């Protein structure tokens, strides 16, 4: 198996526990593998943002198109004249301000805040739990995924493990799998019930299953941190 085949199997969570452990050991000892792994993660992150976020880019283009037309429309170009660029700078800054609002509001519901996963919530391996939680909290969802999966599979009653595994699935855009994990949590009695309902709503929305998304989003009460984005989903689904 080549380095890159191993890396893909590792990052996609296709390795068994012993295979993962062996890979991690080799990663520490083999400099070429380490370099390949780092380059893979970098390329993966870039491709995800430049290719994977195409729906967000389409939304952004729709916002920008009329603004661009308004501020950069063709003027009397028959006459050659000197134009101060500062005049357009004002328009550019105005459009940039709209862009900041677009990012901060957040126009993409997927930018909703992600809670930190508590560490040392262990049943079984403390290392596994802590490493998964650490990677999750660092935003390395793809790497955290196999560890969180193992943890969730180890105890179906552990709502914390189920919830954070579900969120990691959402963040890696595995919406079908995320729904399957988050639905039972949203129907349970744990503290994650409403948070899980929001992420389940987001997954269903991403899969264009609007009635289902609506059902989950309506479970999120006003006191929840996810009330506003849930309302946004409700508006989009109605």
């Amino acid at each position, binding site marked *: 198996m*080549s*380095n*890159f*085949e191993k*890396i*893909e199997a590792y990052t996609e969570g*296709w390795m068994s526990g012993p295979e993962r452990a062996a890979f991690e050991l080799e990663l520490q000892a083999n400099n070429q593998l380490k370099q*390949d792994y780092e*380059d*893979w993660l*970098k*390329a*993966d*992150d*870039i*491709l*995800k*943002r*430049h*290719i*994977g*976020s*195409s*729906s*967000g*880019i389409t939304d*952004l*283009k729709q916002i*920008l*198109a009329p603004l*661009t*037309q308004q*501020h*950069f*429309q*063709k*003027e009397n*170009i028959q006459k050659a004249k000197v134009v*101060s*660029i*500062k005049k*357009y*700078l004002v328009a*550019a*800054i105005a*459009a*940039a301000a709209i*862009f*900041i609002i677009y*990012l901060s509001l957040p126009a993409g519901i997927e930018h909703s805040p992600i809670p930190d996963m508590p560490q040392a919530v262990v049943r079984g391996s403390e290392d596994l739990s802590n490493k998964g939680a650490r990677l999750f909290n660092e*935003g390395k969802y793809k790497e955290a995924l196999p560890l969180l999966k193992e943890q969730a599979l180890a105890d179906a009653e552990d709502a914390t493990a189920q919830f954070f595994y579900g969120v990691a699935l959402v963040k890696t*855009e*595995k919406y*079908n799998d995320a729904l399957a994990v988050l639905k039972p949590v949203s129907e349970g009695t744990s503290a994650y019930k409403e948070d899980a309902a929001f992420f389940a709503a987001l997954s269903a929305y*991403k899969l264009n299953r609007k009635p289902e998304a609506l059902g989950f989003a309506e479970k999120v009460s006003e006191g929840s941190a996810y009330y506003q984005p849930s309302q946004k989903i409700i508006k989009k689904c109605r």
Partner: protein
Amino acid sequence: MEEAGDIFQESIIDVYKLAQNKDFTLTCPLEAFLLLICKRKWINQAEKNKRHGVTNPVDEGYTLVASKDDEAAALYADTLEKEEMVVAMLQKISDRCREIIIGSYANKSQQQLAGELGVSYAYLRKKKSLCMAELISLVRNNKNHAA
């Protein structure tokens, strides 16, 4: 003017892509960063079109940007250019590999993609890792040449 509008729009989209990275924090004013990206894109476009006369002091009109901010903005702009180089390298790999990589990152499940490409899931998995290796190798070579 239309060209300026296109460049401005492309630049905002580039900033958006960069901001998708959870670790990304902008430490300089947005306008400094945005103007620098626009400026670089403008120069690249001008060079492409082999226009003369615009490569001289293009900084004129950008005096709002303080030099310290400009340095920070340049670092972000460099990062963005490196990322764009990785995406550009997709055009240099084989058609099949390009199809597999783009499909893999376009919100499709691997099973769905395998079905669309008419290959088995196992083949797709193996081929994807080979394609990523091809892409990474091109990126490395390009960096070495640029260095």
